[in-house]
Each structure stands twice: as C-alpha cells, then as structure tokens.
C-alpha cells in the first residue's frame, strides 16, 4: 500500500454560488458518504485538518494579498490522505469525489517515504 494525497480544487468563481441550506446538506452528505466509503475499505489515512476558506498569499515582491483566489482561476478546497495499492486504484477512488460534480478536479500525488 502506498499513501496518496488527494487535493481538491475548483473554480474560484464557484464561491459566488449561494446554495440553499438543503443543497448544502446534500453536499455534506455526498462528501461524508464518499469519505465513509473510503474508510469502509480501510483506505482512509486521515482527513487532515479542515482549511479555513479565507487566507493570505505572499507574493515574490513580499506583498500580501487577501485570499488565494483574487487572481487565480482555481482555488484549493481541501485535501485527504488515503492509501491504495497503486496509482490506478488511487485514481479510481478519486473518481468518486463530489468536487467533480461541481466542475472541480482532484490532483492525486503519491507520498514518498
């Protein structure tokens, strides 16, 4: 088994979407069902700590901007540590990620050492 880091990104513009409480509840369920399914296969390593939505970015000229999504198209939305036999299996797991349904993507990175 190798450990993999899954990074979820989606378009920054999606922040402007205001889902209803019911839609948000449904989104929460999709994520929990997906993560629960990974955990049920004993392939969840850690959900890590939750990232705050707000943050700051330090630029090369040492200026600081509010939030990573001012000039970038995509925003880092969350992460998950899993274990899988190989990259193919990790990708198969990533295909179930709810972020794909809102136009986002999942980056799969093997962890070394």
């Amino acid at each position, binding site marked *: 088994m190798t450990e993999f880091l899954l990074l979820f990104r989606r378009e920054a513009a999606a922040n402007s979407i205001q889902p209803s409480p019911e839609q948000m509840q449904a989104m929460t369920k999709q994520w929990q069902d997906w993560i*629960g*399914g990974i*955990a049920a296969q004993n392939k*969840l390593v850690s959900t890590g700590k939750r990232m705050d939505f707000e943050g700051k970015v330090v630029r090369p000229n040492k200026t600081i901007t509010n939030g990573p999504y001012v000039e970038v198209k995509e925003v880092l939305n969350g992460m998950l540590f899993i274990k899988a036999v190989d990259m193919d299996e990790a990708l198969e797991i990533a295909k179930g990620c709810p972020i794909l349904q809102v136009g986002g993507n999942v980056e799969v990175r093997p962890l070394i050492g």
Partner: protein
Amino acid sequence: MNNRELIPHLFRTEYRKIVSVLCKHFGADKIEIAEDIASDTFLTAAESWGQSQIPPNPIAWLYSVAKNKAKSYMQRDTLFENKISKEILKSSDTKSELDLSPENITDSQLQMMFAICHPSISTEAQIGLSLRILCGFGIDEIADAFLSNKETINKRLFRAKEKLREEKVKIEVPVASDINERLETVLTTIYLLFNEGYYSESQNSILRKDMCLEAMRLCYMLIENNDTNQPSVNALLSLMCFHASRFEARINEKGEPVLYQEQDVTLWDTELIRKGEYFLTNAAKGPTLSKYHVEAAIAYWHTHKADTKEKWENILQLYNALLQIEYSPIAALNRTYALSKANSKKEAIIEAENLQLTDNHYYYSLLGELYTGIDYSKAKDNYQKALALTKKSTEKQLIEGKMERLRDISNSSID
C-alpha cells in the same frame, strides 16, 4: 432467597470486594494470597453454616472471618520473613486491621480495575482477570463463557498475575494527568467483557446476561467516582444499556438468535432504553467525541424499530463518522447495509464489492441480502459462500433462514 442460593449469591457479590480490599492491603504481588484468603473465607462459611446455622448477618460474618484470616496470615508472614531476612519493618507487616468499610471497598474495587486493566497485560488476560477478580466468576463459568476448559483458563490467569508482579503494577487510581489514557484501556476491557457476554456462543444464557450486567456495573462504578466520571464512560454505559435492552428479544425460548427485524418490540426493556438516553445526554458534555459516543448514537437509533428514511440516514452518517475514528470490518459492513437503506441497494452493492472482506462470512451474508430481489443467483451464491465460511451452528441457522426467504421471494415473483 432460599439457603441453597445464598452462598453462590454472596460469592458473586462479596468475593470480589474481599479480594480487592485484600489486594490493596497486601499489594498486587500478593494477588494469589488475597484470592486464597477470600476463597478460604467462603469455604469456612460453607462448612460452618452447614454444620450449625446461617448467621443473622452473613455478610458481616464473612468480613469478620476474612479479617481474622488476613490477620493470621500477616502474623505468619512476619514470622517467616523475620526468620529468613531479618527485615522487621516490611510495609505490609505493620499495617493495621483489614479495612472493610463501604468506602474502602468501593475505592479498592476501582483501584483494582485500573491494576487489572494495565496496558502491559494482554487483553485476553485482562478480561479473564476481570471476570475472576472484579466480577467473582468461577473458573468453570469463565471456561464456559470462552468455550474453553479450566486448565487453559487457569494458565491464562496465572500468567496474567505473574505479569502484574513483574511489572510491579500498583493498586491505585492513576493521577489526573494519566487518567484519560489509562481509562481508555479500562473502557476497552469493559466493552469486550460486555461483548463476550452479548455475542458468546455459550448456551448458558443466564451466564451471558450476567457478564453483560457485570460489565455495566463496572462502568457504573466509574461513573460514581468524580475522577473517572468522564463523557466517554457515560457514552459506553449508554451504549451497553441500549444493547442490553434487547436481551430478552434477541434470543428465543430455544436459545436461538432472533434477527433484529424479527424481534418482538414488546420484549425490549424500555427502562434500559430510558437509562441509555439519560447517560447519552450526560455523555454530551465536553468537547470529546469518542467511538463510544458514535456507537451509542447508532444504538439509540436502533431503539426505533420503524424503518424510516431519517433513521437510516442518521445511522449511515454515524457509521461514516465511526469509520473515520476507527476502522473495523463489522463497522464497514454495517455502514454498507445502512447505505442500502438510506441511499439505494444498487449503490450499496458497488461499495460492498469494494470491501473485499473475502474471509468474513458476514461479508457474503450482506451481499446475499443486497442481491435479494435484484439478482437471485448472485444472492444464492453469496449465501452459500457465507455458509461455507461459518462453523457456528447459530450463524448457519440464520443464513439458512435468509436463503429460505430468498426462495420464497423468487417463487412469488414467478407467480
């Protein structure tokens, strides 16, 4: 209570108290001496009460005999040690009379619980020692519960006591900074003790129920003490109350297990369900969410018999949370069953096939159940695989029952 039942009853309630107090008095390295003195006290009672009559206060009688036996042991011990080592001032020699006050009995039992559930002792030995020392079970009864024999159990207990000596385990409640970590081992042992009774294959259903009640009693002792009255302890007791509420309904007159779906709800113990709710509310204090909290919440939803969408959605999310705290194959399987109820059978089949718990008969039972009404031959295949994997006769009966229903369903759909 008639006289024939008096000594077994007193043995169950008093042996553990006398042993705990003696152990605390002499130290954990003399645990066997404590057991000998306690056993000898009951032997004396059996002879004396048989020859004359039962004293008006049998418990006080037992305590005073235990005190005398302890005193004469200490005198002999002092004499012996003086001759051999010339060390006059041994700590145990100078101790005064055995203190069998209610406070010291409670304290000693609590401290004994922490000594027995010491991380250095194997889990199996912890359960055995707990049954013997904390619950006053006979060696025969322990052997029966483990479907083992007296020799094996005696060896296991002997090794555990050796370990207590080697590790120089102290009979005390850990200091505040260590208490949560040590408490975790104690809770694990109590929960295993409960499960041993709840899921045991032993035909002796009274014994099994006693084991469950003893586990609950030990947990309640932790709740009664301020230092150990933690949210996770309340959560565990809540969980055990909910499970125990179905004790009468889950086994029929022939001693065969009855599936949850087929249980007679009027046999559920509403008093225990109410207690479970009370301790679950108490468990909600503080920031910790232990696996016992989640399991108690799942058990709470199972006290609602009706198959509502709300019930299964809650159970699914609780299993999702439980698996993120700690993986276990049974939680994975139960989660998948909840998924079939909350979402759909189709979704659950895909996730079930991913589990690949191919050495687990519950895995194939679950697949059989999920395919029932969807694919007859796949359902049958999976049930047959489940049958081939289990040796327990009660489990075989349950699977055969499910196969019968599968045939009924497929026949009725042909008509």
